[in-house]
């Protein structure tokens, strides 16, 4: 018990104690285009990083959720001949190091095709990490749906597809929300793939199709690497605190929604 608590308490307390100095109201309204490493903490902000993270994670979710859900449905409902190899592949994919996901997109899309670092490329790299998490969680949630419900649907004259879409998926709804949130939590702190394919920027960029895009992990990484000043460190710890809060909120939400499933 204490052995597990020590690292958690230590990490959280360090981030909170060092991070609160980097928190100020302006950080949610400014980006870093006009602030340098030597400026006081109150100058500049992480708006561009927050927006970039939300856009890239949102994009990754739009790509990953349908693929992950369809994979899970194939494994639990269709149970075709390919179920075993696909299950193996999903498990193997969840062990892929994140930098490999970044390098993969870099080498098959960015260098030969688009030749531009963009937010969309970041979303694609993150999807590689997100799909297995969503597929595995969704599979477990769908397996929890009792077979009696599928039988009831089919016995009412529904086809298998309508039983799945009208009975099984709605019954698993809150479980699928949990899968989404766990998928987001899996990728929101990823740094390596984003560094490789979305560039990272100090300026606010709302367009994932063009130009580099900042993100919270990139903001932290850059402040540490290029800063070397007291203010830069404060910014980095502040960014970490914001990221940590975001993740805690998401996990709390997932926990709450999965507890409510017993309706």
């Amino acid at each position, binding site marked *: 018990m204490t052995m597990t608590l020590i690292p958690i308490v230590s990490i959280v307390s360090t981030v909170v104690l060092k991070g609160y100095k980097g928190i100020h109201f302006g950080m949610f309204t400014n980006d870093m285009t006009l602030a340098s490493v030597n400026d006081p903490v109150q100058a500049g902000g992480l708006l561009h990083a927050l927006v970039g993270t939300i856009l890239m994670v949102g994009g990754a979710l739009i790509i990953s959720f349908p693929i992950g859900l369809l994979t899970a449905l194939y494994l639990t409902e269709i*149970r075709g001949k390919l179920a075993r190899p696909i299950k193996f592949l999903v498990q193997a994919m969840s062990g892929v190091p994140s930098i490999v996901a970044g390098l993969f997109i870099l080498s098959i899309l960015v260098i030969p095709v688009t030749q531009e670092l963009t937010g969309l490329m970041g979303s694609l790299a993150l999807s590689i990490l997100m799909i297995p998490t969503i597929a595995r969680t969704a599979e477990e949630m769908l397996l929890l749906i*009792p077979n*009696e*419900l*599928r*039988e*009831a*649907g*089919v*016995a*009412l*004259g*529904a*086809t298998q597809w*309508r*039983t799945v879409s*009208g*009975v099984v998926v*709605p*019954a698993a*709804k809150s479980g699928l929300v949990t899968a989404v949130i766990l998928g987001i939590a899996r990728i929101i702190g990823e740094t390596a793939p984003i560094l490789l394919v979305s560039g990272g920027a100090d300026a606010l960029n709302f367009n994932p199709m063009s130009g580099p895009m900042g993100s919270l992990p990139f903001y932290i990484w850059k402040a540490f690497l290029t800063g070397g000043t007291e203010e830069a460190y404060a910014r980095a710890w502040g960014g970490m605190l914001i990221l940590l809060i975001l993740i805690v909120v998401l996990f709390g939400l997932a926990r709450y929604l999965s507890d409510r499933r017993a*309706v």
Partner: protein
Amino acid sequence: MTVTENSNNDNNMEKKMQTTKPSSLASVAGNREQRVPGTNLLGTGLETRGVHAWFGTKHVLSDISLDFAAGTVTALIGPSGCGKSTYLRTLNRMHEFIPTAALAGEVLLDGKDIYAPGTDVTKIRLRVGMVFQKPNPFPSMTIGENVLSGLKLAQLKRSNTDELLESCLQRAGLWSEVKDRLGEHGGALSGGQQQRLCIARALAVEPQVLLMDEPCSALDPGSTFRIEQTISELAKSMTIVIVTHNMQQAARVADYTAFFLSDGGPGVMIETAPTSKIFSSPTDKRTEDYVTGRFG
């Protein structure tokens, strides 16, 4: 003090049960008004010709031929593992839902084999509805949505859904209990109410045959009584086949009773007759042993 009282009651109950068996079953069955098959305009009923069933290589049912005349209630009785539930599931092709299942023989609905090539299985299941052992209302839907879910799932169009909702719940004997809470979730109901909700749900697609697989085995006596009333009401307008472990129930609700048995091999149908005859003067010694409680 209360403990002794309880044990006394139990003893009395047991004595009563012993003295009233088996003649009471026969008299209960005899009290039922005997329906004459084929008098209702409900199609010509359901019949099976030489049905065999397998799970993988295991032969679980052998050569079952039975007639279910339109507008009658038939009970399938027999000890656990004799294949009666499997047989019931062959009647609306739910048997196929189990991946390794196989079947031989014919199941004729209005004279047409429901296993004939080119038959739309979803259409068969609309005509032959089913109620399961465990109440299984859809958890994501309200009471009202549950009743009408069959229309949505099978993509049927009905204009007067409000009337249909009320009439199905009326026929299932649930309307007065839920009419003010149709927007609540089905899970909020008691087990017996949930089972009647499942009956209402099966009725909404207007089947001509209703299969019931031990519909009361998970319910208390009060709920069981309500469901049996419902079955008697429904039998005026449809054909019902019910699997039951409870011989009193068979005697109370069924016009005809079929006795199934397995001696370790595939299940066979030993005897079928009007219910009063099965419980008073069965032809086969094994039927008599079973209905008098000597085994099973």
